[in-house]
């Protein structure tokens, strides 16, 4: 089990501050954050490339904060071009085994096993310069695995691959996780995190702001940053007012000239309201539904989205709604179309500042 406590590192204008998290044995822990938030610096501190200014890194009961890289037994896989260019694929995979002075027969056997596991057996005699991006990453993974690391550290291992290779690499990583390998995977790609992580940590401005299982973190984001980062476009700053008389726990949220109803037990005050695009209904007339939030506006954009079509409506602020292509045709949605949007008070989520 990896335990990171209050890890900090200052690098000129940039700093990783007070980072703490745990990674259990067998976890697939994804550190998710935009470019430049300090993910790689954090990973370098875990590996031992960068020495932290403060904090502690422990593996089980052992304090490894100041251990040498070669003693940490972490298998490191970079984003790209980390194979030794002057050695064959076999030489690359065998490198760590030879460094541990294993007998030739053992080196050969382990190289064979891990090249089979990662599907690179046919490439053993090739030089790294002749491999595709996906092949090179699988070799890098085989090389790291061959040394029997206690934890795999992956720095954006999929980012530079084409779509087909990404799929193969994800399948391979999922398979490794299923076999019990502990993995820490750094990425800026939300979908990568969703498809691989058993636990996820969100990094923002040099700090890990949230850690949890993906479903909790992504379905109930605790900050505007997470909401925006995972693609929730409807996030509005404003102020939560106390519930009115007889309104139960439905509170009012005021953003500019608009007032939304929101089901929350949060204390009144400044914050952010988020609504998922898939929770918004678009209609041509005002419907009598249970939805407490209904607004009239004009369509300002209709664009194909990953799932269906994203329609943007200006109701005083821009609201993005996901609808099916059939609905777009049926409602005749195009630029300028006057529509109603509605969503339930329970679909709106208030995040305190």
């Amino acid at each position, binding site marked *: 089990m990896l335990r990171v406590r209050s890890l900090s590192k200052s690098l000129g204008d940039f700093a990783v501050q007070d980072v703490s998290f745990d990674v259990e044995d067998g976890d697939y822990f994804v550190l998710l954050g935009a470019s430049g938030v300090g993910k790689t610096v954090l990973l370098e501190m875990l*590996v*031992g*490339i960068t020495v932290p200014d403060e904090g502690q890194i422990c593996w089980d009961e052992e304090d490894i904060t100041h251990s*040498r*890289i*070669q003693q*940490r*037994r*972490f*298998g*490191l896989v*970079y984003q790209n*071009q*980390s194979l*030794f*260019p*002057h050695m064959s694929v076999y030489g690359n995979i065998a*490198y*760590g085994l030879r*460094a*541990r002075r294993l007998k030739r027969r053992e080196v050969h056997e382990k190289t064979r096993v891990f090249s089979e596991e990662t599907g690179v057996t046919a490439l053993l005699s090739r*030089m790294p*310069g002749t491999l595709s991006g996906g092949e090179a990453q699988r070799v890098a993974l085989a*090389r*790291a695995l061959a*040394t029997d690391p206690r934890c795999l550290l992956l720095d954006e291992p999929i980012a530079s691959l084409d779509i087909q290779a990404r799929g193969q690499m994800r399948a391979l990583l999922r398979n490794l996780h299923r076999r019990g390998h502990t993995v820490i995977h750094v990425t800026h790609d939300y979908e990568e995190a969703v498809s691989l992580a058993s636990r996820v940590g969100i990094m923002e401005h040099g700090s890990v702001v949230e850690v949890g299982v993906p479903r909790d973190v992504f379905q109930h984001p605790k900050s505007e940053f997470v909401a925006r980062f995972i693609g929730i476009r409807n996030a509005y700053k404003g102020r939560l007012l106390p519930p009115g008389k007889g309104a139960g726990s439905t509170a009012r949220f005021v953003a500019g000239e608009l007032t939304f109803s929101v089901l929350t037990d949060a204390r009144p005050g400044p914050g952010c309201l988020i609504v998922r695009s898939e929770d918004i209904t678009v209609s041509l007339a005002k419907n009598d539904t249970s939805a407490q939030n209904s607004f009239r506006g004009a369509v300002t954009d209709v664009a194909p989205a990953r799932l269906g079509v994203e329609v943007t409506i200006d109701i005083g602020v821009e609201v993005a709604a996901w609808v099916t292509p059939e609905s777009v045709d049926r409602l005749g949605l195009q630029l300028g179309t006057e529509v109603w949007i509605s969503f339930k008070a329970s679909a709106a989520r208030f995040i305190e500042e």
Partner: protein
Amino acid sequence: MSHFARTSQRPEPLYLLFSFLGGAVLLFVVAPLAGMVLKTSAPEIAKTAVDPEVRRSVALTLWTSMAATAILSVGAIPLSYLLARKQFLFKRVVTSIIDLPIVIPHSAAGIAILGIISGDSLMGAAAERVGFRFVGGPAGIITAMAFVSLPFLIHAAREGFAAVPERLEMAALSLGASPTRMFLTISVPLAWRSILSGLILMWARGLSEFGAVAVVAYHPIVTPVLIYERFGAFGLKYARPISVLFIAVCLVFFIVVRLLAREQDNAAR
């Protein structure tokens, strides 16, 4: 329209001027050498090639310059690595010290070396006590050659190491390699081309050294000193064949080393 497409239609006057100036520089280098070769007849060269004094001096020059390169590379290559990879106190001072032999006159360098290896000096006296003489012997020649040629190796090797991606070294360490193993199996092989260039440059600079060597050890006589002596005693006509011969020998060695290195590179690929 691409830049090159445009120049292929109508030559750019600026590049014509550059080509003319560049050609003049090339001529400046080639003309004296070509003139020297053309003015030397084959029988003259053949006669020089069998001259025992010439043969002795060429052999001495070749082995002493190789020895200077080999001995100093043991410390110079690790120093180059430190300069390329590490930050340390007075790094700039160290870099400037390494450049000193390039900027000081070589005869002055010879005088400075003499100061530490002559029998009057601490080191020279200690060496003489165990029966070893620097001044007037191959050891003195090697010292003088090494002193003036060292910066060429360090500069080339440092650039070579700096060009090796650091993440490859980190990957090697994370795979359990010791720093020594990492250095010998990753850093040196990947910087090898630059290191080899540095070794060749250092060796070439050493074997062409005259000033420092003449001060430290006029005898046994190395070829650059012999050329100077023949020129002083007998004139241009007698100095020319030995110059041509020496250049030819150096070129042969230079080409052979380059070819061997290329073969090694191809094999590695």
